[in-house]
């Protein structure tokens, strides 16, 4: 076969398949998404009573105060930044990421247990001391950073460990909070696949409406 014929087939196959798989297929899926599943297709956004977007049902938010159930530690602080001082341009694109610390890396232990240092800049507070100070019994999910840094969930045990703290701060009964946790827990698929998780943003939004 001549070189010209070989090259012509290569170019023509490139263009024909490009139209089919990179244009027609995505356009079909965009149409189905926007028409049949507009809520999911646009990011499962949660709106408040004023119809303003307050977050996504699938993406976590940072919570550290005692009035809210705290979320897992995150390497990107859940893709957040102060709009007035966003040097990293986080808000232009949104980000995700992980610590990538190996189990044998001492930096992982320092982050979890804390590390004193004469230079306050170098000192690390540590996840366990921070949780203990807040009166929360540490669980694995609350000391390990998540995969995406956007994990919307904490484990049911991690939520239960925070009930007394939130109840005291808000003057509520612990059993009210137990009900809320149950209502905002996403179960396993078919009761089998995956792990149950308490959706922290939805739980805290529900707390505010009590």
């Amino acid at each position: 076969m001549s070189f010209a014929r070989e090259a012509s087939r290569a170019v023509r196959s490139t263009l024909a398949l490009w139209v089919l798989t990179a244009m027609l297929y995505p356009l079909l899926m965009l149409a189905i998404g926007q028409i049949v599943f507009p809520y999911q297709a646009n990011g499962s956004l949660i709106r408040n009573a004023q119809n303003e977007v307050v977050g996504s049902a699938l993406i976590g938010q940072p919570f550290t105060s005692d009035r809210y159930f705290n979320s897992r530690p995150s390497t990107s602080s859940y893709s957040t930044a102060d709009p007035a001082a966003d040097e990293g341009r986080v808000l232009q694109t949104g980000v995700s990421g992980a610590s990538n610390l190996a189990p044998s890396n001492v930096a992982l232990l320092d982050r979890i247990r804390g590390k004193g240092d004469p230079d306050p800049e170098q000192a690390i507070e540590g996840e366990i001391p921070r949780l203990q100070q807040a009166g929360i019994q540490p669980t694995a999910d609350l000391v390990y950073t998540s995969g995406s840094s956007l994990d919307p969930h904490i484990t049911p045990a991690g939520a239960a460990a925070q009930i007394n703290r939130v109840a005291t701060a808000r003057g509520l009964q612990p059993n009210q909070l137990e009900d809320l946790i149950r209502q905002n827990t996403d179960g396993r698929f078919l009761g089998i696949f995956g792990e149950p998780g308490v959706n922290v943003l939805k739980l805290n939004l529900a707390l505010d409406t009590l």
Partner: protein
Amino acid sequence: MLQGWIQIGLTLLILVAITPLFGGYMARVYQEEKTFFDRILNPLDRLLYSAIGVQPKENMTGWQYARAAISSNIVMALLIFFLIMNQGWLPLNPTRVPAPTWDTALHTTISFITNTNQQHYSGETYLSYGSQMLGLGYHMFTSAATGLAVGIAFIRGLTGKPLGNFYVDLIRSITRILLPISIVGAIALLAAGVPETLAGVVVVPTLEDPAVSQAIARGPVAHYEFIKELGENGGGFFAINSAHPFENPNGFTNLVQLVAILSVPSSLIYTYGVFANNIKQALLVYLIPLSILVGFVILTAIAEYNGNPAVNALLNVDQAPNLEGKEVRFGWAQSALYAVITTASMCGAINSLHDSFMPNGGFATLSNMFLQIVFGGQGTGTAYLFAYLLLAVFVTGLMVGRTPEFLGRKIEKREVVLASFLILLVHPIAILIPGAITMAFPDQLSGISNPGFHGLSQVMYEYASAAANNGSGFEGLGDSQPSPIAIAGGAETSTTALWWNLSTCFSLLAGRYIPIVSLLLLADGLSRKQPVPETVGTLRTDTGLFTGVTAGVILILGALTFFPILALGPIAEAFLISRGIG
């Protein structure tokens, strides 16, 4: 704990159960028998054939087939390189991302055309929607179809049939297998919460502190997501791949992804059985990768369940799962299962960070990529498996003093040279030589982020992932240039990233195109041989004994080459952790 094992067992059962159905369907597709959607798809196929200028009945020789595969791949790569380098002014760029550095664009192009999808970039901050949808999403179809076509041509040659026509196989792989299944799968993902939109980022004030805002990245994800798994591509739309809640929101999507990842390479063994008219042999061969896979899943999952002893001591418990780099909704079981399946099948998508796995996970994922046959890559994995089978025929032939034959064809010098070249030389060269160069200059080149033995694993994982066309990584490694947005803001480019981008290109290309050419030449030679009649003296290759010998050959030839790396990396790290760290 038991619940976790049940999830793992059921997922594997589903995978095994679909193998004969899907494998049988693929056999019908490639033997051009009647299939369900012929009425719609036959006209589409004919349209594509005439657009490309292909005579569907024209058979190619091995060399012609390889030339067609490579020349089409070159043109496809040029198109995508152009799209990425010009994304700054091209449409579909709502987040206003400028073009990345040339080396990032080059590495990304080569990594996607080779079906690897090794990512030295983060989707959100480096690429426009257009580059992902029109560029990378396109390669996800064509690179997977190229691999499938080569795998099928190899099976045809092995079973004594003409190799077929590359363009026909390429098109049928897309129109009969990848595209229709992707449409169904993408709709399932969409319904379960994966976004599909051209609208840009949503910025909202956070609930706890409205002075701080959250940026929610979106995009045309669902269509991209499913072909990412089905085509064993693995390049995530977002930086953090299938750990991102928008790529993989729940247990349902995770199951769909796992099944999609392993379905083609596992079913292709059954397809071989149909072609060879010997289902028994296909099932016996199937047991080799299946048993290795199950072993690795158990090894990895036990360690993730037991967790990091140093952290468990801080938590005052005997056992707590290692959740560093893992999502709550997947936990230890689905994370360990995903990690092993994605490296076994050369997909390379991740739902948890392999860098943070216990050493058992590092051992299993690295071994998967060293072996390349634990189902292996799209099309090529099955071909490698049978190349091992040819070597086993040769070895056993020598042992019992009979002429080695496979499916009635003599295995002679040319076959043994090509098969052993493939298995014993290309893969180690593409991993160990660049790895050794990098380790010779640890400060200048390596970009290691975790100290000690784990650092060696990081470097070797990157090259193994490139050469095996897997694409996952120990992502702490400093292999990325700063994002184009950061560079526009004045960030300096990095020499380490330049080295990684260029040196992995060598492994990517060597690990893809040398095997493709060798496999096709091997198949071509076999298909031309005169069949020799089977006699009582013929060594039978569809017995349990022969399958056991093959497994031995795989472990000896495939694993021993790389054993020093495993010993100095994950095994040494495991000893370090059991002794106690810091």
